[in-house]
């Protein structure tokens, strides 16, 4: 009996695994994969560079979006925000929503896109340029996982999107992140 208990204790003595760390590592891996796809698309698209021709900027933005779209053909919501990752972000935002200043910023209705204006049913869609981009609370950005250049978090009402800044597209979204 004693011997059995000792064996069991030995089995359990493996280093403890932090489930959040695993989920975060998975999130990072998925983001890295997206960045790789974008890099390939970027290499074949007209460069988004400094110019005084506004049409060139728009053309480069659209071309990049199209190339990423083609490379991610068949993509589905949840490829980055898997149920586990989305659940983690819902938990991560929770302490922030208790801070009155953050709460006020998250509830700021005037600078939010109009309800339904941002397509949250299909990934890879362009963010509608007629709509404002909700300002991100700095303390949320400070605590959440850092993102590579030109990928950003944005809220759309209670929902969270990952946005490709240069392609102006919605990479993925997680619904009802804000309680």
């Amino acid at each position, binding site marked *: 009996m004693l011997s059995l208990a000792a064996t069991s204790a030995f089995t359990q003595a493996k280093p403890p695994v932090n489930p959040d760390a695993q989920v975060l590592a998975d999130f990072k891996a998925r983001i890295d994969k997206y960045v790789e796809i974008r890099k390939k698309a970027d290499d074949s698209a007209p460069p988004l560079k400094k*110019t005084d021709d506004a*049409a060139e*900027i*728009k053309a480069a933005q659209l071309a990049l979006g199209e190339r990423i779209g083609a490379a991610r053909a068949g993509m589905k919501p949840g490829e980055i925000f898997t149920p586990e990752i989305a659940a983690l972000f819902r938990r991560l935002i929770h302490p922030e929503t208790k801070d009155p200043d953050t709460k006020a910023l998250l509830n700021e209705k005037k600078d939010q896109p109009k309800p339904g204006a941002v397509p949250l049913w299909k990934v890879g869609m362009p963010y509608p*340029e007629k709509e404002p981009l909700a*300002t991100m609370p*700095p303390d949320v*950005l400070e605590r959440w996982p850092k993102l590579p250049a030109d990928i950003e978090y944005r809220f759309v009402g209670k929902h969270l999107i990952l946005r490709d800044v240069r392609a*102006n597209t919605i990479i993925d979204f997680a619904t009802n992140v804000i309680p």
Partner: protein
Amino acid sequence: MQARRLHRFVIPLALLLSVVSAAAPQITLPNQKDSLKFAIIGDSGTGSKSQYQIAEQLISTRTPFAYEFILMMGDNLYGGSDAKDFRKKFEDPYKSLLDSGMKFYATLGNHDNPNERFYERWNMKGERFYTFKPKPGIRFFALDSNYMDPKQLDWLEKELAASGSDWKIMFFHHPIYSSGGAHGSDVQLRQQLEPMFLKHGVDVVLAGHEHFYERIKPQKGIYYFISGGAAKLREGDVNTRSELTAKSYDSGYHFMLVELGKDTMYFQTINQDGKTVDSGSLTRFSDADKKKLAGLATTQSSR
């Protein structure tokens, strides 16, 4: 037929007269030879009649007051960033200024597509945040207050620490002090930025977002202005009982003219009719005073 001809003649004439009638506003600034002169417009990109009216006033002040560049406080393009938006909401209203080689320095607002940073006429160097030094001893820092991430904060800390400039002037979209009813002070942003401003002796902070003009009473040795009414107006939005306000104007559109001397900043705020709605001068707080005020602020905030 005759009526149509008359119509074709009268409308362009009326437009021409409206432009000609934009008489140059009376400049009250000292207009000193060696000072740095610049203008400020905020929330300007609507393409509306009011934007063009303010643009005309801005253009007409250039003759008596030869400002060297224009700062844009964000929301430079509302409703899209196609080539036609740039044309209608920027290139056309400020055409004569652009043709004369006028430089614009923009910061991003919440209505701007961040890819606007690649538009060369806004001199953003392809970056969401950047700094420039138009003259020895004066440095400007443009921030993206929509997305104040650690990367940007680290950059600002380094740039401020490395800046030996006498004048340190910040500009970004969201005001950290404001008496606006619709938005008000962005307290979260203040918590992030103000300690850095105090630590590195920032002198002046310029913002937009609120669709009015407000000059804030100095806060811990820093002067704050809100200039977000170059095409948008939220009439009656300033809380007239606010203890923050030194002067406000929310009954018309406006732009600002600024002149920087060695230790003095002169300013003049002008509305769409060419009327001056605020003007004055500010003296920089000395480094010793700034340190004292910063120390005091730290003590107060730790209580």
